[in-house]
């Protein structure tokens, strides 16, 4: 008995045995189960808060959906009954608390209501729009993260050099440029002046849906994707550079340099490893920013994605669609942060003890 205990102790201490120990694995699974339950409860609470806040905000609105969508002239020529029917269609006559209760009851059974502008279930509208913008935003998210990380570490490791100055300067300039203005510039240079790329939309105009190939879609997504990646990059880049500067000023880097390690070896072995964790947090926290940026960029490029639907819903007073998009993007942002938490443990062994997943 004594012998076995000491055996298991040694296996725990030696790195490889650690993964074979069954008791440890079981406790870890239990712990990660608890972790997921806690996070799930937090998500539910957050979504409840977000939807309630959004609902009451929208119900406060003095904007009359009938005035915006039907128009004063058309309203004037209608009978009282017709107006009353329209009012109940746009939900203008339900008190907010009752409306929210009805919405919540529907949402819990998987029905987010019917979009008032598209006259289809909100879920199907969102699914269609998401299909358009998912690849766009995902590609832009990965590109901005990878580009920001690579250029940020490079600039930080080569502080004060010409390369650092150019990269940092460009990042600062980009961070002060609104995403929609960047989109306008790209559009006027590449589509209007040079004529290389299409002006907007996600597919060619006047082409039947069956004829649209992957190539058409890709060509239409180049400029919005580029714009979205560029506008998301400076934030990650500048913060990664800042972290890299801290690392390069540390004692262990000084020691490594004194030992005779080359600059490249120091940057890769000490710099990258220490910057990876904050960079990962930044990358997953930037989900919200990319989603927000996609609202502006899709609007400029008339790209029929989720962001453009949000603007249409907001301008037209389509409350169910606006609520659906808000709740969906809040869950996406939450999942981004959750992924960061989970990946911490995988990337950094020191964090595993702190009670994360894995």
């Amino acid at each position, binding site marked *: 008995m004594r012998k076995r205990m000491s055996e298991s102790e040694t296996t725990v201490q030696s790195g490889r045995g650690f993964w074979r120990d069954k008791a440890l694995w079981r406790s870890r699974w239990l712990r990660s189960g608890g972790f997921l339950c806690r996070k799930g409860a937090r998500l539910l609470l*957050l979504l409840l808060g977000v939807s309630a806040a959004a609902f009451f905000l929208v119900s*406060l609105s003095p904007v009359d959906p009938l005035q915006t969508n039907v128009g004063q002239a058309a309203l004037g020529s209608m009978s009282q009954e017709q107006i009353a029917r329209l009012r109940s269609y746009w939900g203008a006559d339900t008190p907010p608390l009752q409306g929210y209760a009805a919405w919540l009851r529907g949402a819990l059974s998987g029905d987010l209501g019917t979009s008032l502008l598209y006259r289809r279930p909100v879920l199907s509208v969102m699914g269609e729009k998401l299909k358009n913008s998912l690849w766009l935003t995902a590609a832009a998210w990965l590109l901005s993260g990878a580009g920001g990380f690579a250029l940020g570490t490079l600039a930080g490791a080569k502080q004060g050099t010409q390369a650092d100055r150019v990269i940092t300067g460009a990042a600062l300039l980009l961070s002060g440029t609104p995403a929609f*203005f960047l989109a306008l*510039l790209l559009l*006027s240079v590449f589509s209007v*002046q040079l004529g290389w790329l299409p*002006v907007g939309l996600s597919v060619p105009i006047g082409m039947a849906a069956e004829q649209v190939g992957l190539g058409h879609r890709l060509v239409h997504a180049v400029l919005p994707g580029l714009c979205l990646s560029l506008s998301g990059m400076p934030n990650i880049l500048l913060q990664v550079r800042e972290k890299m500067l801290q690392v390069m000023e540390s004692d262990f880097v000084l020691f490594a340099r004194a030992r005779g390690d080359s600059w490249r070896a120091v940057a890769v072995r000490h710099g990258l490893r220490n910057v990876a964790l904050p960079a990962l947090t930044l990358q997953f926290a930037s989900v919200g920013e990319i989603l927000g940026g996609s609202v502006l960029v899709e*609007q400029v490029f008339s790209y029929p994605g989720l962001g453009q639907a949000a603007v249409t819903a907001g301008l037209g007073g389509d409350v169910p669609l606006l609520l659906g*998009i808000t709740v969906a993007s809040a869950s996406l942002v939450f999942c981004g942060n959750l992924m960061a938490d989970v990946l911490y443990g995988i990337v950094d062994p020191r964090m595993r003890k702190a009670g994360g997943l894995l």
Partner: protein
Amino acid sequence: MKTRQRDNCQRDNRRAKTLAGIVLICVLLFAISAAGMLWKEEALVADFSEKNLPPCGAHWFGTDFMGRDMLVRTVTGLSLSIRLGVLTALVSAAFAAVLGIGAAVLGRAADAVVSWLIDLMLGIPHILLLILISYGLGKGFFGVAAGIALTHWTSLARLLRGEVLQLAESRFVQMARKLGHGPGYIARIHMLPHLLPQLFTGLILLFSHAVLHEASITFLGFGLAPEQPAIGIILSESMQYLSMGYWWLGLFPGGLLVLVILLFFWLGRSVCALLDPASAHL
């Protein structure tokens, strides 16, 4: 001895340079906002005999489809953006101070409420939140102003909360407590000197965000009325003429907008460098 003198000289020079930069930026921003207020009427003057002119001597930024001078319109729009940005950033910083310090001081319940509120606001993409608030408050000037003021306090509040919590744990505050000083005295003598620079730089860095988001939300059509010369409206109008090759309608107003945002950003960085003891020597 000599080297130290030279060092001192250089240091003073840099401090002076930073100060001069701050003054210059303030003068520039003030000049733009003043010029815009003076040109309020001229920005609406249309002259159909001079429509869609490219940049020339009489109209540096060209004219638009109604023959309105784009330079005048741009400066008027920027002036509005600057004033709105300063106003909303001030309100936002006040929110941040009250909520951040309140969360740290008023006990666990208040802390939980404020932290949850911050999580809630950061959980929705910023632009979407702006759309929701400005729709809820009826779009227009008030909707935009309230939207920006209500959404920018979160990170500064978090920062201040952390700072107060850290200060409360520090040796000198605990010692002051043991010496019998009341909370009011401690807050005034020991905490405020640490918090004010943070609040001040946070406020100035908020300006550029506020201006950027004001332009964005106005561009989407949630902001000011279409006849008002706001920078977002100018840019969204220019989009319709982009394919006709009227590039000056978008390039110059947008470029100046970027310049103003960067000016605010540099202002914040310079003030931060001067106020922060760790970098006060530059």
